[in-house]
């Protein structure tokens, strides 16, 4: 339930400052970055994602660790299915 999924920011949307496009194990989706304190994220940064929102910025080593943990728990496919399922923003960063 409290599953958090690591992803790497690949693109920002200048006209949609609340969104960042992330790559999670090859799946690319927009996520909301409104919960990040001092929300400065840039392409290349790693974030922890939960139900469509970035929860925190993390290091690359932590991102790999988190993926490994999800695999060990047998929840990595579920995590990727979750990200694939986000339908709130189109690829160009549509609302909400």
């Amino acid at each position, binding site marked *: 339930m*409290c*599953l*958090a999924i690591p992803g790497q920011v690949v693109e920002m949307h200048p006209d949609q400052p609340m969104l960042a496009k992330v790559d999670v194990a090859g799946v690319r989706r927009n996520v909301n970055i409104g*919960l990040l*304190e001092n929300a400065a994220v840039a392409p290349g940064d790693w974030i922890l994602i939960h139900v*469509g929102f970035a*929860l*925190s910025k993390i290091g690359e080593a932590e991102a790999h660790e988190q993926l490994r943990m999800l695999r*060990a728990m047998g929840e990595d496919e579920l995590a990727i299915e979750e990200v694939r399922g986000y339908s709130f923003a189109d690829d160009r960063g549509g609302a909400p």
Partner: protein
Amino acid sequence: MKYVDEYRDPVLIENVAREIARTVKPARHYRIMEVCGGHTHSIYRHGLRDVLPENIELVHGPGCPVCVLPTGRVDDGLSIADGDDVILTCFGDMLRVPGTRGTALERKARGADIRMVYSPLDALKLAQTNPSKQVCFFAIGFETTAPSTALTILRARALGVENFSVFSNHVTIVPAMRAILDSPRMLLDGFVGPGHVATITGCRPYEFVARDYGKPVVVAGFEPLDILQAILMVVRQLNAGEARVENEYARFVPWNGNGAALAALETVFALRPVFEWRGLGFIPESAFEVRADFATWDAERRFAVPGVRVTDPSAAQCGEVLTGSLKPAQCRLFGTVCSPERPVGALMVSSEGACAAHYRYAQRAAETEPAGV
């Protein structure tokens, strides 16, 4: 040590396990609660019981939002889908939770418009694309999830989307820990604190456990190594007669939490005077309701939610399992009347619940579980 091969760092795991075995005092019994359902899942999945000395007893806590949601709230939420022109949305794990008139999936099969979403933002989007419908999001979860719901409500207000609402069942873990600590049946010596919840709350909210109850809390991650390391840290504190909050998961958990997320929670939600938890009963100020300023987006104000109370069968002993006075398999309903397919009690409902995890890994657990408490 049978399952050690599966671990990432078998040598490290063995070292920590050996260190725990060296550190425990043979004459002492250690009862340690892992608060979070994610930890419970990991402990069973990785057979961690197998690498711990017999005098360490793990008690599985209430940190599973599906498990602690009372049946009456499930009924209330599903009743919203009975309305005309309503789309009820929820996360996947809510679909199979039984109410008194069946699960969300069964209601959907009978014609209710119930849809699974992966994010509350997906529900908001549905409201935008279905302006003639009322779209309600059946929200559950601890502090990990609640800020996302809060931000979605703020987003709905900013966008002027008024056919969207939230049926909030968000709960906060600290009052539940306090309720367990206040229970007359309480036998715990210390806690492994929740990892992902603490990325939001930080470690501060757990300080009262050490200060007021004299019990150690170690916030931990979810890998076997994290959990064992945290258990070792709790044991060391207990041996030294100390009680502090320590952060084993500092690489993810800032001591003060996530300020933006806590601010969003504070803006949108207020604490309910009291909320019922399955297995634990009524706990003051333990759940979030949508503030009156956001009434438009509050499903409990928008819909005539009946406010059903459904008492769990008194034969179910969830409360005793939760406070550590009974093991899952010692409940008189375990595995016979109450199973993951037909859950009666709270802890059998989700795979993160102690009883469901125990049932699923029963073969493994049966070999290692001490016969009694």
